[in-house]
């Protein structure tokens, strides 16, 4: 995690202004000369978590690489809302190929640069949860196995959003989607084994695996920048709430991301060569209810009355995460 | 056009034999086309390879149905499949075996007039090469019986294909096979 010693001038809150930081410690977004990799004019929904995350991530990557970056994008919301021909929101060299092949395409870009003796230009691949954990898993694993020099960023909004909110391998249990409706004996997504990509990435022992959310944007930036100091296969999994798909208020996007971390449902940590080396501690722990309540995709768990069995099951998942990743404490 | 068909079992280097023959022919300045009958590779299963030899460009690619020469690397195949199918009259037959023509019951099997050479190629391979791989050895016999490629060309093909130590053993074995068959021919003359 990034840590900086700062003098507090505000008591009773954690807000610390950027004016107290050195230039190189400031958010990339405070720099008027930043790339603005994903510039305005794109067609994302109001309150889109992915647009926010991608902008921060790529601007950080551009700063970290002195603007020597090529981005590969999978099919999905990010690609669709950013490049409605003949317009493009991207101010970086950017390639979109297909849905399931972003890791492989990025491998190809990296290979071409290597063949040309270019050791300066770096490669970032990005895709949603569907592209990453389902259809792109084969190529992603191949990229990990070969340790190709690519940072892969997964923007996880926990369903196939661009096609109308269908369930993906990353959809949490009990969540309502267009293909896991809130009806019947087990409303919403079934409780399965899950497909927790950060652990799969760690199982490949790749140089760097980290999770982040758009509730802690400085942390996201720092992780991208840290990843870009390394070579080889790196993986960053970012939780990006989707107001439309999750049925939440567009103004609540960041709040919901924070509740995901504070409840323990989304652990935030870093791993090097397959071993967890740091985790973000929960500051104000909340019950999972606080997180679930704000999202219509879970409304069937509260109405007509609280579904104790399911919510308690989700709470146990949160508890297990907190224990496994040591999320309480200093 | 001279057509050679080689029969053996998977693992005996039948395809390599066809390749070596093709290279020997090429080294001698002629055209050659060699190819296997393609099956899933399986040790011990019957394998066939073909080699066409010509002074001109070879254009046809069908399997060789009417061979001028048959090389039988594994005599146990004689009882199992009709290895002699299509043999051309006045064709050549080379068989790797320690048995005689009578013991192999060839009279029942080969219906056309032909030149025959039977030699213990596996034993020659063991002696000169230390391994029971008769493929290159039998090309020495081919050279002696048909005269289509000189022994030198067979040797040069072997030296191109194999590492020096293995090549030397194969050349020695092929030479021994050549002399064996020349003696056999002389004896029957």
């Amino acid at each position, binding site marked *: 995690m990034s840590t900086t010693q700062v003098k507090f001038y505000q008591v009773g809150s954690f807000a610390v202004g950027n004016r107290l930081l050195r230039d190189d410690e400031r958010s990339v977004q405070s720099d008027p000369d930043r790339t603005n990799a994903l510039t305005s004019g794109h067609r994302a929904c109001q309150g889109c978590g992915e647009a926010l995350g991608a902008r921060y991530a790529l601007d950080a990557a551009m700063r970290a690489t002195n603007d020597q970056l090529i981005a590969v994008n999978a099919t999905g919301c990010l690609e669709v809302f950013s490049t409605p021909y003949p317009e*493009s929101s991207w101010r970086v060299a950017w390639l979109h190929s297909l849905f399931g092949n972003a890791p492989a395409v990025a491998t190809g870009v990296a290979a071409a640069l290597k063949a040309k003796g270019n050791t300066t230009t770096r490669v970032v691949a990005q895709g949603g949860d569907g592209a990453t954990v389902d259809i792109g898993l084969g*190529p992603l694993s191949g990229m990990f196995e070969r340790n190709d020099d690519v940072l892969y960023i997964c923007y996880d909004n926990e369903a196939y959003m661009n096609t109308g909110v269908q369930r993906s391998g990353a959809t949490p249990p009990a969540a309502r989607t267009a293909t896991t409706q809130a009806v019947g004996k087990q409303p919403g997504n079934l409780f399965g084994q899950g497909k927790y990509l950060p652990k799969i990435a760690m199982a490949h022992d790749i140089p760097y695996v980290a999770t982040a959310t758009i509730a802690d944007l400085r942390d996201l930036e720092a992780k991208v920048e840290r990843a870009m100091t390394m070579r080889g296969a790196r993986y960053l999994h970012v939780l990006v709430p989707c107001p439309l798909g999750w049925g939440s208020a567009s103004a609540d996007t960041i709040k919901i991301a924070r509740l995901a971390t504070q409840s323990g449902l989304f652990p935030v940590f870093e791993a090097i060569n397959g071993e967890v080396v740091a985790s973000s501690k929960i500051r104000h722990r909340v019950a999972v209810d606080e997180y679930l309540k704000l999202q219509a995709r879970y409304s069937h768990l509260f109405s007509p009355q609280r579904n104790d069995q399911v919510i308690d099951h989700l709470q146990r998942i949160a508890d297990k995460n907190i224990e496994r990743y040591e999320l309480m404490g200093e | 056009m001279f057509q050679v068909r080689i029969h053996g079992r998977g693992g005996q280097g039948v395809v390599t034999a066809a390749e070596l023959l093709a290279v020997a022919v090429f080294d001698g300045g002629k055209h050659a086309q060699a190819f296997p009958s393609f099956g899933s590779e399986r040790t011990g299963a019957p394998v066939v390879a073909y080699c066409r030899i010509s002074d001109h460009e070879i254009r046809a690619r069908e399997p060789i149905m009417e061979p001028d020469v048959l090389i039988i690397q594994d005599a146990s195949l004689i009882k199992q499949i009709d290895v002699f199918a299509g043999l051309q009259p006045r064709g050549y037959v080379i068989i790797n075996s320690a048995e005689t023509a009578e013991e192999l019951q060839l009279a029942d099997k080969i219906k056309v007039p032909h030149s025959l050479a039977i030699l213990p190629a596996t034993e020659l391979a063991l002696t000169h090469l230390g391994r029971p791989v008769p493929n290159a050895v039998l090309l020495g016999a081919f050279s002696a019986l048909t005269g289509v490629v000189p022994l030198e060309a067979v040797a040069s093909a072997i030296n191109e294909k194999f590492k020096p130590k293995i090549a030397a053993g194969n050349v020695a074995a092929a030479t021994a096979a050549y002399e064996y068959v020349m003696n056999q021919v002389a004896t029957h003359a």
Partner: protein
Amino acid sequence: MLRQVEGSKAVADAVAACQPEVICAYPISPQTHIVEGLSQLVKDGTLPNCEFINVESEFAAMSVAIGSSATGARTYTATASQGLLYMVEAVYNASGLGLPIVMTVANRAIGGPINIWNDHSDSMSQRDSGWLQLYAENNQEAVDLHIQAFRIAEEMSMPVMVCMDGFILTHAYEQVDIPTTDEVKAFLPPFVPRQHLDPAEPVSIGAMVGPESFMEVKYLAHQRMIDSAAKVQEVAKDFEAHFGRKTGGLLRSYRTEGAETIVLALGSIIGTLKDVIDELQLDGKSIGVVGLTSFRPFPYESVAAALKGAKRVIILEKAFSTGTGGIVTQDVARAIEGMGIKDFTVIAGLGGRPITISSLRNYLTNAMAENIDRLTFLDLEIDTVEVEINKERAQR
């Protein structure tokens, strides 16, 4: 240099002589010897400044190729049959993005049922994909077509499939002249991409094109394919000037002058057909063969000119459209429309069934007398299939 070498090895050496920068491949029979050969050349340093990526599937192979080519690197891959189908999404993507990737297709039948032997069903299934398709008659042409393919691809900004019959050519040892790297360099200049991923001049490649523009984009691709025919010819001509061999191009005619019957075919069967034609001509028969090298772009004018004056054309195909019949036939029929030439189709060699000189001789003798059906499956076991057909019909 003239060498007696396996077809796959010849292709590997020819591709290496073109100095690709990225090779990515997934093994599948009967292409394996090609990628093994290239892997060796990269590993032992014979082919320098080249990244050889062992990918996890054919879909990954074409995807890696897309990323590499979009970054401005000369890129090569190879596949066959099931592998080609597994990468189809990426195949269309490559042509849609205008990437000059060269790919060998070691023609093999598509399953089910699984069959590893040669026919043309794999590449034929991709005839609409926007890739050029060039078919090699023999291993010399396979070598030459790969070299020509890189130049055609890069000058047109279109991907090219070089098709060579699996096993029949890939695993045949014959005499081939393989140009050296320097000789190829004089013919094939370094790759200068029309556009590529470059942080210095960032572009967005792969935007979403809506209904208002998609037709135009596709029309441009259609026109480009038509225009590529001239490029195929131009490159073949320049190849002949450099290397002294007439290979590649759109098609070649053999003994068709004044022929009443002309056979049209693609790939290695052309060689066998030439032998049959020679035999029949010795018997005084009026028959010749047109070997089609370029199937895409389909050279309508050249085919019409080559068949002009014949009474009938026999199209020999190693693939077919289920329930319909010949595939190449459809294009040929369009080419000769209104010319008063009858067309007949013979489907042969499916799944590697050997096509023999005697079968061809019999069939063509009947064909010359028009004593054949419009559509024939050569050497079919009629009795066996009739029993099955009757059984199936009775059960319905």
